[in-house]
């Protein structure tokens, strides 16, 4: 390999390179060996370490509480094990609430849920309705196992949040014991309020007080009055303070209620008609609570207690908390999480002991120190461990007192209601691309249709699984028989038979893998696509709906069509542009110039990061006000009298998809590498021949390079086409599909249906439609390119 004509300095660098390479190799081999030893030792240790104690599996999250919450639960469980020597607790913590619910759902669907787990009040209706939870009525009445547990000590409204019966939350059977709760209100920057000359809000302040103060702060240089989040539950709490609600007692959306429209229009106009009163809703750089940390916001809310651990890191200014302002009346909402027991647990008695332990006064007191939420036990909440004026916020009582007129926000057992209302409210109140009336109208129409859909019928027949499995088995037997007959019909000569045998032998890994990990799941999902199944119950509870899912998708689901449009536009932009850039890059990198390997690395590196970190970064890049993209675009566009788009907020309808297409350019490294490998295989002699024919670089490219690597191009185009129809992670992390549905890519909507709305059957139907779409597009591409692609050496 080494170049013998090279001078000594060159050989020094060669040796240095070799030394580096060998060192790296040794290091990485050592690392791999270390990893295998560590994992191996642990597994052996695990296998040896079983005992005969009763095992309880506990699952929780530690989102806003972070490692501190994790540690508290861990400690409480350790003490429980000490007090109950016959029980061993296995603790699972997937991290944040989103990961928690995804995992819980898969575990439930598999019929293997943890014994004890967190349930947020907003999910209670769906879980209790599906029969996933164990009723706690008898247990709370009969005995109290933990000495410090007494349901009478709990704030009644927090306990009521976990009562559910006949489709109604708030009364009836009890399904969980709330571990803690919070009411909501506004956090305020005391220094800014003083600077603006407005008094600190009282515990009984009004919306007029709020807006007057916010306007005053907004007048200060570089400051904004308030961050006012328009989450669906918060909006309903605001409406309660005005004596009305978004949803009436029958569960209808009050789309035409003038009072509702008036209140919402007021919030909309504060944000969009006034300068500096509310944040613009445009600069979506981090979560809204974080913006308060910058010290330029008068108020931030309505938030619950959960932001306190974060806000306690503030050193630059004084801050405090006031409850939700009063309108016509005082009202507030309760956000709370309970420990619930799975209906499938094999140890209900032990599980109940654990739940009462975890919600007992001692554990609550310990958690109260963290300050993340208000203890649900009245004694603890009003004791010293929670109320501590020496650490901000000093007004701890303002979290407790509103509980008198606070209640949990009741949502339907159909989780899609909250999701859709939230989406439309976001468009009306934050991004402002829909009027309040239109937003409510759209949500109302959708909800009416949803409830009157045949799919929503409660009298659907069960899925005839036995029958279906029978048909599948018969079908498979027939297919095998036909295949066997086809193979036997004309027996090959012995030599071909040997080749044939080795062929089947060599592809057998794929065949086995295909049957186990593809065919069976695919057939299962095909079966699911004709059912209505929540994905949180077991399969035998699936209801048979025939082609109802497909009919609803194609006929009635506007979001489906919108997601198809978003995805199609993205594919139309991202595939050609991406492939051209990748091919161009590869051709340029195939030129022998110095440092070409560095260029290769540079172009490929972003693809390595194509995960969570990249998505976080690109949200900053596409930020309308300060983002890198617009900082670059602005000087180009402003001489033309144009303004750079507000990618993911106001102009998302037209620029949301394209922004993702632009972002996908950072990920062309993979395609480029494949092109490069293809280019290296083009015989040099062809270029030399073309050069002799006096073909310029462009002619050479079009008459030699393109035809020679056309199979590679076809491969890449098909792959990126398929990939573009499966965009998920970026949209999931960056926009979550919003605003509205302007960046709701197909797979993201599929994911929403499956894991947010618990419509696994519907999602399976979507997946099958997607499969047909992609299959069709691929066939078209293959057909259309048949004449353009040049194969060599393929028999």
């Amino acid at each position, binding site marked *: 390999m080494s170049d013998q004509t090279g001078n000594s300095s060159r050989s020094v660098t060669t040796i240095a390179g070799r030394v580096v390479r060998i060192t790296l190799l040794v290091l990485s081999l050592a690392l791999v060996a270390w*990893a295998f030893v560590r*994992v191996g030792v642990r597994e052996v240790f695990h296998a040896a370490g079983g005992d005969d104690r009763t095992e309880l599996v506990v699952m929780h999250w530690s989102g806003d509480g972070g*490692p501190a919450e*994790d540690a508290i639960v861990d400690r409480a469980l350790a003490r429980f094990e000490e007090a109950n020597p016959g029980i061993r607790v*296995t*603790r*699972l913590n997937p991290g944040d609430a989103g990961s928690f619910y*995804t995992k819980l759902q*898969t575990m439930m669907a598999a019929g*293997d849920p943890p014994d004890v787990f967190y349930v947020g009040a907003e999910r209670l209706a769906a879980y209790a309705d599906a029969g996933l939870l164990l009723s706690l009525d008898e247990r709370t009445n009969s005995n109290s196992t933990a000495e410090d547990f007494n349901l009478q000590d709990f704030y009644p409204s927090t306990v009521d949040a976990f009562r559910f019966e006949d489709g109604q939350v708030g009364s009836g059977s009890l399904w969980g014991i709330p571990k803690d709760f919070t009411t909501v209100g506004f956090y305020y920057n005391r220094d800014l309020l003083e600077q603006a000359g407005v008094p600190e809000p009282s515990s009984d302040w009004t919306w007029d007080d709020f807006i007057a103060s916010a306007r005053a702060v907004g007048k200060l240089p570089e400051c904004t009055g308030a961050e006012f989040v328009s989450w669906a539950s918060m909006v309903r709490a605001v409406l309660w303070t005005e004596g009305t609600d978004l949803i009436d007692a029958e569960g209808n959306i009050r789309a035409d209620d003038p009072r509702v429209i008036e209140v919402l229009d007021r919030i909309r106009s504060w944000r969009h008609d006034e300068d500096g009163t509310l944040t613009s809703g445009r600069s979506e750089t*981090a979560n809204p609570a974080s913006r308060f*940390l910058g010290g330029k916001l008068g108020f931030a809310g309505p938030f619950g207690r959960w932001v306190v651990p*974060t806000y306690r890191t503030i050193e630059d200014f004084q801050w405090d908390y006031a409850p939700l302002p009063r309108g016509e009346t005082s009202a507030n909402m309760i956000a709370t999480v309970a420990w619930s027991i799975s209906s499938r647990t094999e140890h209900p008695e032990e599980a109940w002991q654990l739940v009462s332990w975890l919600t007992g006064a001692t554990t609550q007191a310990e958690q109260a120190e963290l300050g993340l939420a208000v203890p649900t036990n009245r004694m603890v909440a009003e004791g010293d461990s929670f109320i501590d004026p020496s650490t901000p916020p000093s007004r701890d009582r303002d979290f407790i007192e509103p509980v008198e007129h606070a209640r949990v926000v009741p949502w339907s057992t159909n989780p899609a209601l909250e999701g859709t209302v939230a989406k439309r409210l976001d468009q009306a109140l934050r991004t402002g691309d829909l009027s309040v009336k239109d937003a409510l109208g759209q949500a109302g129409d959708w909800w009416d249709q949803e409830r009157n859909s045949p799919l929503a019928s409660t009298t659907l027949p069960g899925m005839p699984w036995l029958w279906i499995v029978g048909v599948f088995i018969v079908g498979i037997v027939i297919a095998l028989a036909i295949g066997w007959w*086809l193979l036997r019909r004309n027996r090959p000569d012995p030599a*071909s038979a040997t*080749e*044939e045998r*080795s*062929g*089947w032998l*060599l*592809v057998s*890994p794929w065949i086995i*893998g*295909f049957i186990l990990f593809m065919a*069976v799941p695919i057939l299962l999902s095909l079966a*699911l696509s004709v059912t209505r199944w929540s994905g949180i119950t077991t399969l035998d509870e699936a209801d048979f709906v025939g082609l109802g899912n497909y009919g609803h998708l194609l006929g009635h689901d506007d979001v489906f069509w919108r997601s198809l449009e978003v995805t199609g536009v993205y594919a139309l932009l991202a595939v050609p542009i991406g492939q051209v850039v990748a091919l161009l*890059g590869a051709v*340029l990198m195939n*030129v022998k*110039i110095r440092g070409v*390997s560095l*260029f*290769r*690395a*540079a172009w490929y*590196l972003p693809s390595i*990061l*194509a*995960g*969570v*970190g990249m998505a976080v970064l690109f949200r900053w890049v596409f*930020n309308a006000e*300060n983002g*890198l993209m617009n900082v670059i675009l602005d000087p180009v566009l402003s001489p033309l009298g144009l303004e750079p788009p507000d990618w993911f907020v106001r102009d998302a309808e037209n620029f949301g998809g394209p922004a993702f297409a632009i972002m996908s350019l950072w990920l062309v490294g993979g395609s480029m*590498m*494949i092109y*490069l490998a293809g280019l290296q*295989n083009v*015989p040099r002699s062809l270029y030399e021949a073309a050069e002799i024919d006096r073909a310029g670089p462009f002619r050479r490219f079009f008459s030699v390079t393109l035809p020679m690597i056309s199979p590679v191009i076809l491969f890449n185009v098909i*792959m990126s086409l398929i990939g573009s129809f499966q965009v998920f992670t970026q949209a999931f992390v960056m926009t979550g599909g919003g605003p509205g549905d302007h960046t709701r890519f197909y*797979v993201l909507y*599929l994911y929403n249906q499956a894991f947010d709305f618990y419509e696994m059957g519907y999602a399976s139907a979507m*997946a*099958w439609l*997607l*499969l047909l779409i*992609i299959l069709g597009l*691929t066939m078209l591409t293959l057909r259309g390119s048949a004449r353009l692609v040049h194969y060599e*050496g393929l028999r």
Partner: protein
Amino acid sequence: MGRWTGRFLVGLALTIGSVAMLFPLWWMLVISLESPQRAGAAAEGGGSIAVWPEEIHWSNYSEALKQIGTEPWQGFFDALANSIVITVLVVIGTVLSSSLVGFAFARINFRGRKFMFLVMLATMMLPAQVTMIPLFLVFRSLGWIDTILPLVIPAFFGSAFFIFMYRQFIAQISESLIEAARIDGYGMLGIWWRIILPMCKPVTAITAIFTFIFVWNDFLGPLIYLHSDDQSTLALALNSFRNQYGGLENVHLLMAVSVVTMIPCVVLFFAAQRAFVEGIGAGAVKG
């Protein structure tokens, strides 16, 4: 246009492209080294887009890594070891199985080959979300939950994407090489191991890198199948870190963890680059 000008233009175009490609990564590195205040400000963009950190805080890294998992450092070491074990096994499995099957599809005549190849292409079009729940049911009935088996074993049965890639490459290898090996006394397995695999080095490098990066960054799989705390992988840890430390005040820590997560991928890439370029097939035939 002279030769020199041409090269200069190529270099210029590549440089501009590289700067655009690398800027986000550089930015990530810068933010991971900034003080918490400056990192938060830089993340909000605008005038404070930093090209160079004002003051380098290496301690961000130790601080961030220490906070992974429940016990200081142990969480990080566990996650690192798990990630390495899973990734290495998956890479080995994918390369072996995909090249074997790709070889069969490219070079062995047997009836049903075309049909199966089409079926295989079709499987590439299936969104992973479709099979997620059914797959979970399958693995559960196999008793594989809370082990690394669901993440590792499927790799040993080939991946459609890489089978396709190997097949395309192997189709370009001269038939006579395989015939020569047959005459030399090797069966199809021997030919695959001694002739095809060594000749496929470039595509193996690509496969290894792609697989490595995908598995290293995958968090949905581990999230679903691995329950126990000490089984967490680095990507899973990064994701829960993002959720726990997602605020602007912790941007520097989040970026530090992201950078650490990236390092093995970057090293692997640079190490395998030579194999990419060698284009070993060039001397195979005629030449």
